[in-house]
């Protein structure tokens, strides 16, 4: 199962994968124990001529044991994922001072990327708009101002382990730091109409030098 996960290329992605693995092994063990017990019972206690079932109404001790055991496990799992969750989604825990800031806006059926340009401010003359192409440097903190123009879309980069819905008239801050160069797909993950399937952008993670060259090409001064 685990080998099907797409390659991870974000700093926080490893943490997500770790939790995934922990849950995977816990649930696998529980599954094997429960199914094993079930199968053993089915074989051992199948109806046989002359044999009667044993009258057992229950056991308070057992009820307490398994209630406590499952509570501890799920409680532990929740505690384990809080730091991870906050690291990914809580704006006040984001690394400050991003190297790159981009506004990404979903609209039927494209991703519009708006770069603030040299003044680092959106809504000015030197802004650059690109359709479906996002360019970022590797090993750099990227902040995205995520929004939508019409309906809800969802910004999903499987390799970043990142998904965030984009809502009209709402600006949601998202961050990531990619650790590997390459070209990755940005599918839309929330049903947004008949063009939802195939609504696709690209995340281009460049080496710092390539990124600098790209910036230079766009804003020549």
């Amino acid at each position, binding site marked *: 199962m685990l080998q099907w996960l797409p390659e991870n290329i974000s700093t926080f992605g490893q943490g997500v994968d770790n939790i995934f693995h922990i849950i995977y092994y816990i649930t696998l063990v529980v599954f094997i124990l*429960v199914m094993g017990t079930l199968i053993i019972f089915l074989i051992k206690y199948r109806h046989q001529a002359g044999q009667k079932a044993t009258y*057992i109404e*229950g056991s308070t001790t057992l009820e307490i044991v398994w209630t406590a055991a*499952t509570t501890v496990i799920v409680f532990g799992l929740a505690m384990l994922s809080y730091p991870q*969750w906050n690291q990914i989604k809580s704006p006040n825990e984001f690394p400050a001072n991003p190297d790159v800031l981009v506004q990404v806006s979903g609209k039927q059926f494209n991703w519009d990327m708006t770069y603030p340009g040299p003044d680092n401010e959106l809504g000015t003359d030197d802004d650059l708009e690109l359709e479906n192409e996002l360019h970022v440097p590797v090993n750099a903190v990227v902040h995205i101002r995520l929004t939508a123009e019409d309906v809800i879309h969802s910004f999903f980069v499987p390799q970043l*382990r990142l998904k965030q819905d984009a*809502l009209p*008239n709402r600006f949601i801050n998202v961050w990531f730091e990619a650790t590997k160069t390459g070209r990755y797909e940005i599918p839309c993950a929330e049903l947004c109409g008949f063009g939802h399937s195939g609504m696709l952008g690209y995340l281009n993670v460049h080496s710092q030098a390539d990124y600098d060259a790209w910036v230079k090409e766009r804003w020549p001064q």
Partner: protein
Amino acid sequence: MHDNEHASHHHEESFISKYIFSLDHKTIGKQFLIYGLIMFFVGGGLALLFRWQLAYPERPVPIIGASEKYMEEGEVTTGADKMWERIYETDEEEWLEVNMPNGVIEPAFYNMLFTMHATIMVFFVVVPILVGAFGNFLIPLMIGTRDMAFPILNMLSFWLAVLAAIIMAIGFFVPGGHAAAGWTGYAPLSADPQWTGVDWGQNLWAISLLIQGFSSLVGSINYITTIINMRAPGMTLFRMPLVIWSLFIVAILLLLAFPVLSSALALLIFDRLAGTTFFTATAEGGGDPLLWQHLFWFFGHPEVYVLILPGMGIASELIPVFSRKPIFGYRSMVYAMIAIAFLGWIVWGHHMFQSGMQPTLGSAFMMTTMLIAVPSAIKTFNWLGTMYKGSIQFTSPMLHSIAFVSMFVIGGLSGIYMANAPVDGFIHDTYYIVAHIHYVVFGGSLFAIFGGIIFWFPKMYGRHMNDVLNKIHFWLTFVAFNCTFFPMHILGVGGHMRRISNPMQYEFLQGFQGMNIFITMSAFTLGAAQLILVFNFFWSMSRGKVAEKNPWHVNTLEWEAPTPVPHGNFVGPVPTVYRGPYEYSVPGEESDWIPQVQPEHAPATGGD
């Protein structure tokens, strides 16, 4: 006595009042069952259509889709180029040509197919069968009374459901097509025709669900009143069979949850028809798309427990009967259901982890969601405990119950992944969710339904279903079900989004084509297997082996009534209850079952 008078009236009933506008809870229950089975085929058919598209994107669907043009030229052009065009000028064209140009399912039609598949399965199959059919048939019989508290309301509940189904069906044929915003109907997509091109389809969807909501509301008032007021003498709450407990709790959930959906639907209709903006955000102000999600899931999460609790109840009846043992931990089973019913109200946010809701709020929902796994685990362990040292008979209803338990385990465990907000960030809106849904609702609820139908069929129709066909149906369904839905976990882990009509548009999903074909072939097998069940069901009604009064040797009261059950249910006075429902293999007794009507100190005779 009033009761006997009631019973003797039934000779004079006309065909219409006996079979169509019947006030008898048993007839209404059977009506709901047949209604659900018919809708099961509609919903299943839609799923098979879109499964074809997923396995063979952009290829014409066989039989219906083999258009003349394709047959002649062998060439297909996709409908994608004509999409916008289609939305603004639809009229003249023929239905099939619009939705499946050249026999290929075009994307807007695809969206409509999965939307209607889920809508029908949730609102028109599983709830009507579990709550409408089993609730109506079983409650009066199992608590020992002659009918529901409000028979006329009961009849109304069924005919409202029929009206809702008719309105839902009309939606398929209006210009612009049926609702295509998912069964969850997220706004603003659902709130304004300009985003989908769907006009009256979405309106009818909302109106139909409003009516279906009234139907459930009326039904649940009836169930609650009946269970509280009309139990047979001696039938204390803690002597009630667990399936009655589950239906009681479900009725309360429905009573409280459906009005929330109804209000949301009403607001949606206002948005669409009266120009309000409850669910749309504009720069000038207005409402909020997240409001829809909160309202929908505040209803939706209790609703998913409505889908499973009666299934748990049915399994809790069948497992003791066929293990010839009392249910393990009766009280803890009841308390677990009550706990689920309470916790079910405070977990809805787990559907919205990635919605833009405050992350801190997400943390709180993560904890409550984790906790709701606990009562589910308790129930599973108790079912295992029931089989421990039992004398297990592998009858068809028991096979379905065992399948129910094992599939529910998988569905519950996959829930743990999604309850983890950071992990959910990856698998949300992927096929992982689809796998989870189907393991709990098909693997859970439907297996329980199949088991329940086979188990109570003798009481409903006075005959047995054919056992060979039942076994074939069971094994085919069990294998095909797992082949269909287990691989979806893998698709989800690979990042395969749900609700996309052509996965081959994505580079990172190229490797999954083969798996999608495998899933589709399994799905067709699964669909075909259900034909066996339906054939068996209708054939056995008139041709099955005649059943005796209590063929499975069960303790509960429905088996005290004669077969077929007369109007008024019990001959003579209603039974008096002396003991709990699961007295199987009591030490020192000769018979391995003691009916609930057996007085405490009389020698056990095993009923009749």
